[in-house]
């Protein structure tokens, strides 16, 4: 299967640099977005798969790798079926939690149990419908691999299970029962980098065009290091904001701080202050920490993806992304959301153009052996609803 490449590799051993260029335009996407929103509105959402395919086709067609555009081919009708299926599942899932803790828990277990399978079929569907130079991509990951990737999640689940089993009288839980909730949160946070590393490994070890498969070489340690740094960046702005808002509240009026006789413990003015302080803290964290994490994760993941004859280099700078995100937020707020498509295009441009493909195989010599297995469209829609975004 590989011999066509090894031969090609020997013949063309000099490196080819394939820069990525994004030619999408904000105004073009704005027009698409508005018209598609209207169509979704009047069709009560049934138009959604068509709008999504149009958006993905536009973004793919404007992503030029080495001067040649990517292609996206999914059939909206196929996606609509999956959309109904997963939509019903999602509605049941959302509703279940409202009835009792037990039904909510059951729904959660069911969704958690099928989530890896959905991830696999979502990846398969997305890649089989993506092409470059007339060749379809493949996703070679297996269902078993997807389940193995989510193994870290069993650790907090075991803590929960132990806590539930360990309680004799559910009506009078001992003190450690509540402490164990804290432990669950901590353990979940602690295994999260491991989980993400597993998932990225699962994805980036199995991309193939057509038989040129990528491997993922980032280490688990590098993921933990990234998370620690991101945590530092997250706490940096939240600390001062929290201190400042507390100061404002205390200075402003210390007497109505938790006044026991007032109608409610928190007066409207204070609630507003808290609301804005909380909003400011979260917004600052999102505006600063999120771009940091996005930029560093993209660089780590893609620069460590490749094989003997192919590698990616991602050089996305945090400072550039930070300024772009700040500008986007300001303009989105000032335009009541109308700037959103421009922002989406600008972010896509910056993130895509930061990547270069370096290959020792002349792209002209790639040959397809077989058609990709398409997988289930349901998986792709599940990706939208249950938060398994493939990302870049």
């Amino acid at each position, binding site marked *: 299967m590989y011999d066509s490449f090894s031969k090609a590799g020997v013949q063309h051993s000099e490196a080819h640099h394939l820069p990525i260029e994004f030619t999408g335009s904000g105004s073009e996407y*704005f027009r698409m977005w508005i*018209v598609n929103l209207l169509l979704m509105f009047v069709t009560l959402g049934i138009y959604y798969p068509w709008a999504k395919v149009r958006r993905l086709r536009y973004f793919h*067609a404007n992503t030029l790798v080495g001067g040649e555009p990517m292609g996206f081919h999914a059939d909206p009708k196929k996606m609509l079926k999956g959309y109904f299926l997963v939509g019903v599942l999602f509605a049941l899932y959302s509703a279940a939690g409202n*009835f009792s*803790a037990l039904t909510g828990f059951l729904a959660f277990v069911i969704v958690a149990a099928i989530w890896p399978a959905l991830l696999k079929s979502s990846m398969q569907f997305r890649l089989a419908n993506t092409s470059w*130079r007339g060749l379809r991509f493949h996703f070679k990951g297996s269902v078993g691999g997807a389940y193995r990737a989510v193994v870290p999640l069993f650790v907090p689940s075991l803590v929960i299970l132990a806590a539930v089993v360990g309680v004799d009288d559910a009506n009078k839980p001992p003190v450690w029962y509540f402490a164990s909730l804290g432990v669950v949160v901590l353990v979940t946070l602690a295994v999260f980098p491991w989980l993400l590393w597993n998932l990225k490994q699962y994805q980036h070890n199995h991309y193939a065009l057509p038989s040129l498969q990528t491997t993922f070489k980032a280490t688990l340690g590098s993921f933990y290091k990234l998370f620690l740094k991101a945590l530092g960046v997250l706490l940096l702005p939240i600390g001062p904001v929290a201190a400042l808002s507390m100061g404002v509240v205390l200075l402003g009026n210390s*007497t109505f701080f938790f006044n026991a006789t007032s109608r409610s413990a928190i007066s409207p003015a204070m609630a507003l202050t808290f609301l804005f302080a909380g909003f400011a803290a979260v917004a600052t964290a999102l505006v600063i920490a999120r771009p940091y994490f996005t930029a560093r994760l993209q660089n780590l993941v893609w620069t460590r993806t490749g094989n003997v004859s192919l590698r990616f280099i991602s050089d996305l700078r945090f400072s550039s992304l930070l300024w772009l995100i700040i500008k986007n937020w300001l303009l989105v707020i000032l335009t009541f*959301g109308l700037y959103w498509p421009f922002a989406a295009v600008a972010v896509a441009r910056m993130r895509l153009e930061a990547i270069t493909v370096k290959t020792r195989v002349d792209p002209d*010599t790639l040959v397809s052996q077989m058609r990709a297995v398409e997988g289930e469209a349901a998986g792709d829609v599940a990706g939208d609803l249950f938060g398994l975004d493939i990302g870049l």
Partner: protein
Amino acid sequence: MDLTATAHVSKGLAASYFDGVTARAQAATLRLVAGDLILTGEGFERCVCASDVQWPERTRYGLRVAHFADGGSVQCADAALWDAWRQYSGQSDSWVVKAQQSWRSVLVSLLLLALLGTAVYQWGLPWAARALVAATPQSVDSSLGQASLSAIDESLMQPSELPLDEQARLSAAFARALAAQPVGTVPVWQLVFRKSRIGPNAFALPGGTMVMTDEMVTLVGADDKVITAVFAHELGHVRHRHGLRMLVQATVIAGVSSVVLGDFSTLQAGVPLLLGQASYSRDAEKEADAEAVRILQAAGISPGVMVTLFEKLAAENKPAASDRKDSVDSTAQSSWLGIAFASHPSDADRIAYFKQAARDFQEKS
């Protein structure tokens, strides 16, 4: 159409062809003849039914790529030439593409969206939520109410310290007031008293459980008329099944705002939810106030008792805000920002409403 372009494309369009097997581009000439797309190049000729081709949508910028079902594709960097060729060959854009290409139709779409959005928010969604709730069995309300009560009991409430006979007296007073209601119009209800950490308050849960805090009873001096009035308001929430309706409306708003803003940010999607819910909540309070007035009038109690309640609540809040020049409530709620976030109409509006109802009541009796 540009004449030179027509002359150019009348003999076919020069494009690059990828055959779907090798990644090498081959020069090809494209022609559309009788519903077939014919590709000719050095050493090959291919014919594909034009309706099986995934044609690119016309855009102002970027190149044009058409995909074939077997994975092959043809592309042309000169978008203007491609469009001229398509037009020359008698193919036209779909109306969606035409709409996307014209700023005028985009502007019209934007206006339509704004109008439709407002209409749906104002009438459509409340109407649909009402219909959906009407079709939902009452048992859903009850189980929802039970789940919320146990959640609230865990976090905010302690058992009531009111004597049982006092609780019974207040319940009996409310039951007497309801006796004047036509048979079959009163939903199932149950009164629950709790000592709380949230101060004087009362609220209704879906399914008919109404909770009043001991602090509320103390605040109004255990006046059974005022307590009845408060319960009548809460019964309005139960009768109109506001709890379930709010749930439906919140779910829809959250869903729509996340679709509109894509996966851009959950925070931004949360803002419309917060603002949208507040307005629905104020409407629900108005509905419950109207119900309270109806019940009180039928029971021969002046709706004016509600005014006493508001005055007592305001008096409770006064000392808290006395160091400032004005009451916190009135400054916070009279600003537009306060109104946007407030879940209840302003106290002044509600007092005026009940005063008017009390005057009407006096004129009648």
